[in-house]
Each structure stands twice: as structure tokens, then as C-alpha cells.
């Protein structure tokens, strides 16, 4: 199987004379690959955001043409007969469903995971463990290429006749394969490429962390970010393959007319479907959520890792409860494999099984709370520097808290019965991923930018970006809790107008006009959130060449190894293999001349103020 770059001296020379393609496109250097992942993921993040804004506009104005882009949608998107999928610029039900399905798919698989796990992980992890690169650089390149291919297939699926997949990011059978368009086929093939990319990446990360830690870098001296990435990689490694199997089976249902997930007696469009039957729709759900649940931990763990790094650095003290953090993250990883059916409480499962999954779901909230508590406690007594990364990270804590706490009623099946598939769920998971994970990712960008480019991003615009994003994200998702509790269901192009009190006068539980009006409020907040990203995007690109130059390789005065390299780190990262002498967060060590002691700083005799008086 693939092994590393040959270590004979001859090849050393070749590395200096690579052309543009080898250096920037077909690179095997983990730093370049990390940046490639980041750029691609940020593009998809932006695209997924655009889909959402169009959807939210349509929900707030049912039956009306979308301004600005409506005519584009009308021209570009067609069905198999040549008619437009957005006649008169109005997003109809089918197109809305495909936007919704792809928004979820793109955000989860093509934006957040590649950014949080692959981009940050690739750039930072080898540096933080003191390694020259990943264990398998060519496999690393292959995993990025598989990601691009998968992403391209997903992107192109919008423009084929009849458009993209329409059955939700969860792609439940029999609906997914009964819709007579090719979008689902593209989705499945795209997923297979994306899953392959993740699996290759996961193997690389785990092998690298196990094998390439620098001398002295014991397991309990690893930065928390590395632990988080390690567990995330295991989740991807073991949870994705069942979805890959399910994807292959659903693809066979679609193109080979098998009936893995199609029950006997299935009728489509009022007619008995011409399939053998005998399959199980529940089987798809089990295999999907077996990945689906660990997947949400994949979305949050790298973010928690970033939060840990930035908190320690900006409080100038060690993270509180390092051991608890490590054991908690390992426990979360383990437990996440046995909670999945809490996404399936409404499938008619019996009491015993439901109780089992409720119990494991409740138990898994404990290590999550431990991690959040440790982060909070780390702030106590800290000498807090309120720079942009720190602001994002401090906001992460309560935002993730809200997201997590609102998950508790969902973990119990009696309350989930009312809330399942409503806007409450949308609010719950978006709180965790949007002002949760994405805030941590923003923080990471601001934090590691000076290591990558040698310049700082603008603090002023960073703070503008932070405050506006925080406010607007809350304005978008807070109302959704109320809408969900009022019974508004997900995935409805008319925003629930069909279930309104106006539609069913005197009916029980009809949605009030106030609940429907909130759609417009949320739309405005979403547009403003989008505008709030403009200073960030400008800041990001402008600062690459015009940002304030850093005056040292370690501008944040951090203890971890990635800051003990030249800026940017050269190919091979460290001139000499670093030797690690201490833990990752030796900040404010009493008696030390500076308030931080890098992990690889040589051991000196520090005068002990208790036994030996300090020099006068």
C-alpha cells in the first residue's frame, strides 16, 4: 500500500525544483493540502449559504418570484422536458426540496467537515506533534482529490435536467429512489467519493498521531486539539463505512432496480412499483444514522479542540482539567456509536429499544458537559486577552451551551414525539454548528493566519465581524425554537402556510400569523448575516499581502509546537526534530522569565522562589 516519500538523500534535491503544478496543485505537503481543503470548503460554505438565503426568501414570500436571482434560476435550471424548474423565478416545491437537501449535504460534508477536520487538521496537527509531515503524504493528496471530485459531482448535479437530489440530506428510501430524476444518482456517487476522501484522511491522521509524535511528545502532553482530531478521525474511520455500504445499496436500488430499501407493495404515483419488494426502509435509516450521529460529533470535536487552544493561549494559564478533557473526548467518541436511534424515535420502535437509546443518549451528554465546564473553568483567574479569536471562542461557549441544552428534550422520546422534524430541531442543531462550530472555525482562521502568512488580520474588522455575526446568528435561530414548539414542520416550501390558522380556521394547533411572520424576520437576519461576512472575506484576502507584519514567529506567545517554527513553516517543518520536555499549556509558570514556556524549550534550572530566593 502507499508509503511515505523515500528517505534517500537523492530525492532531497528534487524537492527544491518543483514547478507550480507540483507545488500548489499536486502537492503532497500537508500545509498546502490544508490550505487547499480550506479554500475549497470555504467556497462550498458560501454556496450553501446562498442556497439557504434563497430558500428563506421563498418561505417568507410563498408563491412570489425571488428577486435578483429569480431570472437566473429560471434560465439555468431545467427539467428533462426542457421547462424551467423555477418558472417565473419562483422556487416551486421540488426545487425547494433540492435546495434543502443540498444545503444540508453541502454544509455538512463539503464545508464543515473538510474545514474543521481536514483543513485545520492537516495544517496544524503535524506541526503540533512535531512531525515533518503526515505519515502518508501521497494518500493525503489522494484524499483531497477525492473530495474535489465528490464536491464537483454534487455541484454539477444542480445543472443536470431535473436538478439535484430532492430527498433531504438524509436521503430516506423509498422516496429517494422513487423520484424519477438523476439527481439522487449524482448524490450517491458524490457521497461515495466524499466518504472515500474522509476514510483516507482518517487513516492518515490516526497513523500520524500514533507514529510521528516527536521525542518527548507523550500522549498526555498532546495539545487538546490533537486529541480532538484523533477521536474525530476514529469516528470517521468506523462510522462512515456503513453509510458507504448503504449508499451502494441505494444506488443499486436506483440503477439496478433492487429492493434493498423498498417494501413489498410499494406504490409510486398511485401505481404498484415494478420492483421485487421485500426490502426495509428502516434499514436505510439505521445505516444512515449509524454514521449520522458520530457525524455530528465530527462536526463539533475539532471546534472544541480549537476552542481549547485559544482559551489556554489567551488566558495565559493551562486548560483546567486536561485529563478530564481527554477522557471525556474519548468517552464521547466511544458512546457516539451507540446512540444513533434517537434520530428514529418516530419509526415505531418498541419501549425496550427506545429506553436503551434514551439511556445512552443521556449518558453521552455528561462528557459533553464536562468538556464545556472545563472550558468555562479555564477562564476563571485568567489574564484574558480579548482579541478576535478569543471573542469568537468565548461566544462559542454559551452558544454551544444553548445548542446542547436544547438537545435534551430531543433525547427523550416522549418530548421528541412533539418536536421531531419541527423547526425546533433546525434551531437546535444550527445553534451547535453555526454560532458553535463555525465560530470556532472563524477563531481558528484569525488565530493561525499569522503562522500561515506572517501577517495579522485586522483586529478592528475582526471585531466587527464577530459582533455582527453573533447578533444575527441569534436573531436567525432563536425564533425557530418558538416556531418548532408551535408545531411548524421542517422542509415546507410555503413555510407552513398550509397549516396556518388562516387556512384551517378554528382548527386545533394551527400556526398563528405571528409564527409565520417570523419567517420574514429570520430572512432579514439571514441577509444581514451574509452582509456581515463581507468584511471578513475582504479582511482575509487583503491581510495576506497588506496585513500588519508579525515581528516574531510566535506573535500570540503560545506554548505549542506549531508556533516554534519559521513563518510560514518550510517543507519538512522543523529544521531539527524537536524534543518535547513538558505539557502543552505551560503558561505563567512561577519563576519563569516569560509567561509562557514552549513545549520544546530546553530544560533550564528555574530558580525555585521557595527554596532559593530570587535575585534582588
Amino acid at each position, binding site marked *: 500500500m502507499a508509503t511515505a516519500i523515500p528517505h534517500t538523500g537523492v530525492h532531497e534535491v528534487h524537492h527544491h525544483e518543483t514547478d507550480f503544478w507540483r507545488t500548489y496543485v499536486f502537492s503532497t505537503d500537508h500545509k498546502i493540502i490544508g490550505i487547499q481543503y480550506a479554500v475549497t470548503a470555504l467556497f462550498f460554505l458560501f454556496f450553501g449559504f446562498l442556497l439557504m438565503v434563497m430558500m428563506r426568501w421563498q418561505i417568507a414570500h410563498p408563491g412570489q418570484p425571488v428577486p435578483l436571482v429569480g431570472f437566473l434560476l429560471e434560465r439555468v435550471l431545467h427539467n428533462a422536458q426542457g421547462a424551467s424548474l423555477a418558472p417565473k423565478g419562483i422556487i416551486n416545491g421540488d426545487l425547494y426540496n433540492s435546495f434543502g437537501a443540498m444545503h444540508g449535504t453541502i454544509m455538512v460534508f463539503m464545508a464543515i467537515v473538510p474545514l474543521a477536520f481536514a483543513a485545520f487538521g492537516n495544517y496544524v496537527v503535524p506541526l503540533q506533534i512535531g512531525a515533518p509531515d503526515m505519515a502518508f503524504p501521497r494518500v493525503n493528496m489522494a484524499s483531497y482529490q477525492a473530495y474535489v471530485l465528490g464536491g464537483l459531482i454534487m455541484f454539477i448535479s444542480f445543472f443536470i435536467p431535473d436538478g439535484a437530489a430532492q430527498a433531504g440530506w438524509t436521503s430516506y428510501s423509498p422516496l429517494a429512489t422513487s423520484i424519477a430524476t438523476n439527481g439522487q444518482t449524482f448524490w450517491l456517487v458524490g457521497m461515495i467519493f466524499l466518504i472515500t476522501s474522509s476514510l483516507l484522511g482518517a487513516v492518515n491522521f490516526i497513523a500520524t498521531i500514533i507514529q510521528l509524535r516527536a521525542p518527548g511528545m507523550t500522549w498526555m502532553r498532546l495539545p487538546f486539539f490533537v486529541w480532538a482530531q484523533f477521536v474525530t478521525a476514529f469516528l470517521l474511520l*468506523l462510522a462512515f463505512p456503513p453509510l458507504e455500504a448503504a449508499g451502494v445499496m441505494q444506488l443499486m436500488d436506483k440503477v439496478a432496480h433492487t429492493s434493498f430499501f423498498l417494501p413489498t407493495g410499494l406504490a409510486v404515483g398511485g401505481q404498484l412499483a415494478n420492483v421485487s419488494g421485500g426490502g*426495509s426502509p*428502516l434499514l436505510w435509516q*439505521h445505516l444512515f444514522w449509524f454514521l449520522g450521529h458520530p457525524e455530528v460529533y465530527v462536526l463539533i470535536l475539532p471546534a472544541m479542540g480549537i476552542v481549547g487552544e485559544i482559551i489556554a493561549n489567551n488566558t495565559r494559564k493551562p486548560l483546567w482539567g486536561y485529563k478530564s478533557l481527554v477522557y471525556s473526548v474519548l468517552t464521547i467518541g466511544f458512546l457516539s456509536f451507540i446512540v444513533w*436511534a434517537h434520530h428514529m424515535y418516530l419509526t*415505531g*420502535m418498541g*419501549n*425496550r429499544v427506545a429506553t436503551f437509546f434514551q439511556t445512552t443518549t443521556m449518558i453521552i451528554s455528561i462528557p459533553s458537559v464536562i468538556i464545556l465546564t472545563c472550558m468555562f473553568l479555564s477562564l476563571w483567574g485568567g489574564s484574558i486577552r480579548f482579541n478576535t479569536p478569543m471573542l469568537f471562542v468565548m461566544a462559542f461557549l454559551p452558544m454551544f451551551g444553548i445548542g446542547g441544552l436544547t438537545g435534551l428534550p430531543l433525547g427523550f422520546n416522549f418530548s421528541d414525539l412533539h418536536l421531531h422534524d419541527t423547526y425546533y430541531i433546525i434551531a437546535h442543531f444550527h445553534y451547535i454548528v453555526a454560532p458553535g462550530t463555525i465560530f470556532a472555525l472563524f477563531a481558528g482562521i484569525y488565530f493561525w493566519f499569522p503562522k500561515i502568512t506572517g501577517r495579522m488580520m485586522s483586529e478592528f474588522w475582526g471585531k466587527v465581524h464577530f459582533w455582527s455575526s453573533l447578533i444575527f446568528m441569534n436573531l436567525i435561530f432563536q425564533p425557530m425554537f418558538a416556531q418548532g414548539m408551535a408545531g411548524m414542520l421542517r422542509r415546507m416550501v410555503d413555510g407552513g402556510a398550509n397549516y396556518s390558522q388562516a387556512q384551517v380556521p378554528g382548527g386545533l394547533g394551527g400556526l398563528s400569523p405571528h409564527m409565520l411572520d417570523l419567517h420574514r424576520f429570520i430572512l432579514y437576519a439571514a441577509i444581514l448575516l451574509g452582509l456581515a461576512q463581507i468584511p471578513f472575506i475582504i479582511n482575509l484576502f487583503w491581510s495576506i499581502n497588506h496585513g500588519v507584519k508579525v515581528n516574531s514567529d510566535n506573535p500570540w506567545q503560545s506554548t505549542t509546537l506549531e508556533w516554534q517554527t519559521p513563518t510560514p513553516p518550510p517543507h519538512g517543518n522543523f529544521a531539527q526534530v524537536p524534543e518535547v520536555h513538558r505539557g502543552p499549556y505551560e503558561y505563567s509558570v512561577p519563576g519563569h522569565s516569560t509567561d509562557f514556556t514552549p513545549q520544546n524549550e530546553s530544560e533550564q534550572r528555574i530558580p525555585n522562589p521557595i527554596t532559593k530566593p530570587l535575585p534582588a
Partner: protein
Amino acid sequence: MSDDHSPEQFSHHVKRYLFVFYALLFGTLITVGASYIPFGHRAINIGVALLIACGKAFLVAGYFMHLVSERKMIYGIMLFTAFFFIGLMFLTIWSVADFPRLPTQH
């Protein structure tokens, strides 16, 4: 595993591999044979076949893949994997088998 044994000691290992090979051949033949024995309940046939398969799997994994002498790290990874695989299989089947029934049904 690269430097554990010298070339001379390897012939001892080769004997072991051949022994495992014969055991696997034998295992295959008795699997087929046992499938024709009418135990009454099909479940018993299934049990016997899977038991023999597990035995053969143990031999391949243990000796051909050197798992019996492999490091803890690898053992650990495979043990967790096995646990999650069993979890997937068992919990999925339990979920489908356990559904609310009317009091008159079993």
C-alpha cells in the same frame, strides 16, 4: 514486525503456516458437510456453520495476519472495531424486532 526473526527461525514459522492451511482446508470441508446434517432447527445449522467460520477466521487473522503476536495498539483498534460491528448488527436487529404489539400478539 520486521526484525523479530532471523531467516533461519522462519522455517519454524513456515511449518505453522502450513498447519494452519491444512486446518483451513479441513474446516472448509466440514463446513460443507455439516450443512447437510439435518439438525432439525435451521438455527442449529447456522450456529454450527458460523462457529466453524469463526474458527477459520481466528486462524487466518491470528496466524496469517500475525495477530497473535501483534502489538497492543493493533489489538486495541480491532477490538473496538469488533465491538462497534457487533453493536451495529445487534442493535439494528433488536430495533426492528422490538416494536409495539397489541396485547394479543406475541
